[in-house]
């Protein structure tokens, strides 16, 4: 552990308009060390990262890199100086219309000293080298737009890693990765740490933090609220410092449901996949877990009507249910909080209030005219309920932190009663306490509807659900009541084992 700080931030401040987001941050990064930065949603982590990486300008304060003043005006300057960042928003990391090879070498193409000519073969060779280091097996000629979210994230990470940076900053890199992919990332981080890179790692996942952290710095409301580097690291202390209070853990008391709301019979969502049958009852929260790419989103979208099943039938309250569009699903009382909020959820030009009311305008208007007062009341109630950090319901979504944007998405669909409430990765980028809050809200309001959440993290399922279904290879392979679970069996099912061993 070198005590020499490669990178130092002193008294950094930043305001958006009247709103001070960073109130004098001081922070050191040491080479060969992973510093984990923890903070609740909206604490200012990403803002700090954006200042360091040259995206935002800052107010008071200074930065130093290897003893020299460092004040990048553009991302290019920061990268050239050796400060490389993977930002929180995945879509800011890749160019969807270009192929994987170009994306992997994007920074080289724009860097100084690169060959003027663009030779597809050379680029592909370079890209191959970059991909191999990360163990990526994506087709280099594929268009990034055609890739799954996780693969896009891996492309962005691989490119950053290939830089041999002095300082590497990762802002919630695992929020859409599977555990296998995350493991690959971790071993790479280990390697870079071994090479003396200073790493700043931001995450809300305790498992990541436990695996990687050499130091933890906690942030709250734009100031540093604690630093922990004594081994063993005081994880609980760090969490308390970031939240400013202790969080109490309520064990989930698994309920069971008497009355079925939704049933699926012999549903097939992919060619060659085994059919899915399930029943969801009122008042229960069911989690479906499984690795990335096993078909969770496909199933969610099938239930929500944006995808057609290949075979099988569904029923809502005993009546046949075969939605042809999201519109029909919503009309039937089926709501979906979609994955990838930037692409599928948020209306960027709308403020919080309008984002929340979007699907329910019909109910909030008379003769087609929107009742603005009702709209505002609903938004205010939801902001309150979910503890969305914002100035008012008129804030634009782009001015919210990632986690708060996610809360707005959940708030939208919780603002009206549903029969079947589906949430696809609802905890993406949400901090621990907010996650607990959302889970608690889901459970508390679960009466009168069936709730179905799709999560890759098993922890999230355990914290939220009454019942856990395991998915593998586009079908459901296991079912557990969330009370004295056989975790080994569950993990084996997730890994795809039982499908082969048990008939």
């Amino acid at each position: 552990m070198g005590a020499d700080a490669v990178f130092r931030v002193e008294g950094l401040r930043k305001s958006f308009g009247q709103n001070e987001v960073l109130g004098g941050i001081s922070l050191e990064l040491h080479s060969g060390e992973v510093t984990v930065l923890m903070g609740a949603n909206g604490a200012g982590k990403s803002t700090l990262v954006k200042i360091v990486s040259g995206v935002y300008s800052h107010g008071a304060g200074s930065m130093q890199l290897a003893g020299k003043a460092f004040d990048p005006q553009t991302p290019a300057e920061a990268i050239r100086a050796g400060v490389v960042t993977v930002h929180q928003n995945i879509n800011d990391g890749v160019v969807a219309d270009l192929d994987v090879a170009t994306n992997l070498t994007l920074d080289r193409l724009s860097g100084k000293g690169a060959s003027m000519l663009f030779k597809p073969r050379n680029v592909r060779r370079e890209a191959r080298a970059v991909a191999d280091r990360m163990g990526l097996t994506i087709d280099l000629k594929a268009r990034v737009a055609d890739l799954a979210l996780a693969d896009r994230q891996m492309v962005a990470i691989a490119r950053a890693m290939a830089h041999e940076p002095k300082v590497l900053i990762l802002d919630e890199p695992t929020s859409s990765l599977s555990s296998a992919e995350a493991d690959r990332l971790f071993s790479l981080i280990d390697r870079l740490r071994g090479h003396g890179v200073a790493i700043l790692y931001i995450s809300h996942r305790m498992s990541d933090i436990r695996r990687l952290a050499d130091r933890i710095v906690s942030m709250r409301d734009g100031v540093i609220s604690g630093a922990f580097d004594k081994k063993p690291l005081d994880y609980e202390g760090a969490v308390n410092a970031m939240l400013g209070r202790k969080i109490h853990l309520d064990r989930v008391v698994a309920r069971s449901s008497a009355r079925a709301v939704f049933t699926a019979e012999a549903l097939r969502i992919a060619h060659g996949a085994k059919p899915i049958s399930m029943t969801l009852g009122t008042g229960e929260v069911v989690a479906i877990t499984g690795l990335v790419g096993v078909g969770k989103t496909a199933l969610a979208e099938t239930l929500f009507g944006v995808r057609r099943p290949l075979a099988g039938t569904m029923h809502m309250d005993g009546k046949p249910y075969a939605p042809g569009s999201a519109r029909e699903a919503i009309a039937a009382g089926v709501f979906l909080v979609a994955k990838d909020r930037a692409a599928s959820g948020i209306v960027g030009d709308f403020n919080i209030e309008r984002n929340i009311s979007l699907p329910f305008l019909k109910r909030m208007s008379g003769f087609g005219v929107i009742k603005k007062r009702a709209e505002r009341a609903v938004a205010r109630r939801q902001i309150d309920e979910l503890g969305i950090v914002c100035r008012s319901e008129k804030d634009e979504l782009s001015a919210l932190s990632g986690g708060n944007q996610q809360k707005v998405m959940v708030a939208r669909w919780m603002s009206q009663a549903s029969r079947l409430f589906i949430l696809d990765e609802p905890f993406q980028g949400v901090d621990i306490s907010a996650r607990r809050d959302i889970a608690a809200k889901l459970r508390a309001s679960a009466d009168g509807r069936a709730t179905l959440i799709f999560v890759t993290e098993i922890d999230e399922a355990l914290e939220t659900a009454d019942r856990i279904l395991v998915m593998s290879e586009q079908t459901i392979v296991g079912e557990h009541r969330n009370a004295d679970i056989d975790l080994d069996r569950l993990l084996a099912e997730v890994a795809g084992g039982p499908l082969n061993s048990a008939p």
Partner: protein
Amino acid sequence: MMLRDHAIRYGFIVLLVGLIAYFAVAADGFVSPQSAVFIFQSVAITGVLALGVTATLVVGGFDLSIGSVATSAMMAASYAMVVLEQNAIVAVIACLVIGVIVGLINGWLIVYMRVPDLLATLGMMFLLLGLQRIPTEGRSIATGMTMPDGSVANGKFSEAFLALGRHRIDFFIPNLIPVSVVVLVVLAVLIWFFLEYTRFGRMMYAVGSNERAAELAGAPVKAYKIWAYVISGVFASIGGILLAARLGRGDIASGNNLLLDAVAAALIGYAVLGAAKPNAFGTAVGAVFVGVLLQGLTMMNAPYYTQDFVKGAVLVVALVFTFALSGRGKR
């Protein structure tokens, strides 16, 4: 900070007021009810077109065909009355039908055939430009004209139709407000109300900002987009009706200038009240702004080319002002 916000919100309006004040002093006769009415009248046609194109801008599209839809409607109205000897109602309906059909085709091309908007509407523009001239083989349509087959067309523009362009309504002063201005104002209020206060308008904005999100929120995105082009087509055809009623004949014209002026008005609208997005109120103000500018300059005997120049310069300055200050999209 407050000051800047005010500058963004009201800068353009202040500019407009300043302009009016300047012309009031510099140009004789600029300030009078007649003059004000006339400014509205001079922008009635482009204004109506601009309001229509605003609807397509709202859903994130664009409609290059409005100019030729307007001239096609003008030709159709003239043809209906002069050659087919129909009455005003038939002529008006024919125009509106053309607007609807063109809008549906544009929408269909863009939504179902996935042709990019600029492309689809550019193709439509050329198509209509040719089509509107085929029935008369490139002749303007007027009573007594000789048709390609040598016969003489004896129909006439009906008085009722001409009244759309010429009749004036009493308003404090007798014979003050022309019907076309009433049409403009009514359509502006309608589309403004529609976009700002109804759920359909709101959804259209959502579609324009994030189509997929709107779809997953249950919006029939395709239908909204097609609607937007139908609105644009119908408004353009209403513009064509007003044009025909004002000119009293079917004039061979490309309509390119109508297109550009309408687009200018709609785009200036972005700057009004710091909206930085398409909006009906802004579009209406933008149209009036251009009208004031041209009226004032003409009254001061400025030749046409300086008018283009001033129009461009004011447009650029006003917009730099709005967009640079508002700082949308950056830090």
